[in-house]
């Protein structure tokens, strides 16, 4: 709860800049395809069910992520964390339920690239980067721009793009590695590169699946700092097993179990919940 209040204190300042604050009462014009955050809700999942051959990966999952919020999602293996991300990014279609991005964008009707354009970036559990491309080229490809074939054939990089890539390289501390093939990076650096690829897309919502797996303690700490600094401007959903990292992020925590939400609240509350303890220790 402590975290929530800090977000609502930050929200108006960011909100005015982003233009999603206060519009709900006065009425506003909807633009097709534009993200409508008039109710301060970034992501809205309602009653989502996904089954694979009779196994319910998600079972009436309902979840709401606010604009600018940093949310951690924890849960034992098979709780449905990755399936949830698949539903949000269009990789898996839910059998039933609603998934909305902002007030108006129905995620269940869009393809993966369309969802990426709408403003959702995803980092996979296993770092997925283009190993044969240089670090620079990885960021170049991810850069927010017109990504149709016609444009790619004659694409050039301009000053703004180069600046953005250079800034991101510094942020993810790979500025001295720009010309190296990404496949030669260490595991932790690959994770950072993938995070950088998300950032240059300028997404409104970042989905991060185990972002600090395989990182050193030092790298983990810096990642936590980075995420906390992104909060407010972006919404972040972080799936993680590393409790120290979750604590460092300090956001609201949602516990998933067997495809639905088991508990929600700040880390201490959740950890004290007897049901959560049973799920983690009972097996």
């Amino acid at each position, binding site marked *: 709860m402590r975290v929530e209040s800090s977000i609502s204190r930050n929200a108006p300042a960011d909100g005015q800049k982003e233009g999603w604050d206060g519009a709900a009462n006065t009425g506003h014009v909807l633009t097709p395809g534009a993200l409508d955050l008039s109710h301060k809700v970034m992501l809205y999942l309602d009653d989502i069910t996904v089954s694979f051959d009779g196994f319910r990966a998600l079972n009436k999952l309902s979840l709401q992520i606010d604009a600018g919020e940093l949310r951690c999602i924890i849960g034992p293996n098979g709780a449905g964390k990755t399936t949830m991300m698949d539903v949000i990014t269009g990789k898996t279609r839910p059998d039933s339920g609603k998934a909305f991005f902002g007030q108006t964008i129905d995620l269940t009707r869009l393809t993966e690239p369309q969802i990426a354009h709408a403003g959702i970036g995803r980092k996979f559990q296993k770092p997925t980067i283009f190993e044969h491309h240089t670090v620079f080229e990885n960021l170049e*490809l991810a850069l927010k721009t017109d990504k149709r074939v016609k444009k790619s*054939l004659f694409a050039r990089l301009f000053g703004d793009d180069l600046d953005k890539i250079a800034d991101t390289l510094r942020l993810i501390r790979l500025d001295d590695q720009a010309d190296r093939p990404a496949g030669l990076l260490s595991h932790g650096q690959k994770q950072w590169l993938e995070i950088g690829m998300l950032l240059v897309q300028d997404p409104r919502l970042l989905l991060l699946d185990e972002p600090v797996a395989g990182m050193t303690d030092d790298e983990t700490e810096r990642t936590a700092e980075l995420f906390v600094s992104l909060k407010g401007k972006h919404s972040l959903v972080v799936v993680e097993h590393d409790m120290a990292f979750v604590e460092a992020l300090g956001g609201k925590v949602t516990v998933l179990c067997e495809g639905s939400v088991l508990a929600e609240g700040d880390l201490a509350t959740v950890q004290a919940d007897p049901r959560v303890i049973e799920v983690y220790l009972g097996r």
Partner: protein
Amino acid sequence: MRTPVSVKLVAGLGPRGWLAVSAVFVAAWVLVPLAHLMLPEGHPLHISTYAITLIGKILCYAVVAVAMDLIWGFGGILSLGHGLFFALGGYSFGMYLMRQIGRDGSYGADIPDFMVFLDWKELPWYWSGTDSFLWCLLLAVAVPGVIAWIFGYFAFRSRIKGVYFSIITQAMTYAAMLFFFRNETGFGGNNGFTDFKRILGYSITAPETRVVLFGLSVTLLLGTLILGKALIASKFGRVLTAIRDAENRVMFIGYNPLHYKLFIWTVSAMLCGLAGALYVPQVGIINPSEMSVANSIEIAIWVAVGGRGTLVGPIFGAGIVNLSKTWFTTSFPEYWLFFLGLLFILVTLYLPEGVAGLWARIKARRAEKAALAAARTEAAAVPAAPRTPAAPESKLPNGTAAKGA
């Protein structure tokens, strides 16, 4: 640090590349015609009709190999049906050559001999306009292009990948072969088109015509290389190789792989069609066996032997395989397929990056040896220095070379 990167992004062919392209172009249009037409037959530098036709044919195959490398080497899509696009280009242009025969056929009729044989009185509707050179040239590009686009759209949209895609392409070319074998299809059945007489009014067997066709084949190959190089050096090329390596990641950063695959797939098919159109007048025959499954597999072998993803390598692959095929099929015809299989196995086992990879490996080894020698002379020149530090230093290029190869 920024400048070199952005320079690399816009450059396709380097200055050395352009020099090589110009040299080959001049040789094909000046030196080869001179050697063929001006020098007497006994002259050591004379190029025979046989050699010109053989090399011209291999050049057409090389275009197909480069087109195949674009989709397989860079796009990661293995097509085992590329012979179809080549044959469709050949048939399209063959229609023009058939019309050029005029009344010089065995039956002296206005329509091709095989139609007389079928007791047809006039040309079917799809033969209309085929007396035009330009229309048939357009067909040679457009027919493979449209068929590839339609096939590719449904296959890529359904996200058919890997070996499943390869098998479907085989089925596609096999079905087309059966269709073209039928006499009623109107393309000469199993005999196909042959006995060509003229092209644009000139005799098709005249040495001058052969020389021009040869020059055009070289030009098409160079054009294909330049186009391929430009595509690969563009952002499009980087997205394409990214799709090959991690398609999921490409989708989740907002690219639709369907359109990228479809584009390169269609371009590749159109290039094959052009190659087929140039092949037919040089070889003098086109029949449905060009669409056989084995032919398409052979195309993949050219690329594998030459080196996938190297663009220039497949040209050598097409050359090596076809020259040895010419030799084998005259000396030991029954062993050719065994040899082809053996070659494919050996290349897969020992030369995964093909001939082009071998070349890179030799270069790396030479650099390594030079570095070793330099380190030794350095160690000898400084007798006071202990020998041990020289050893790890010479080890360094060794390790990097192994990674690069």
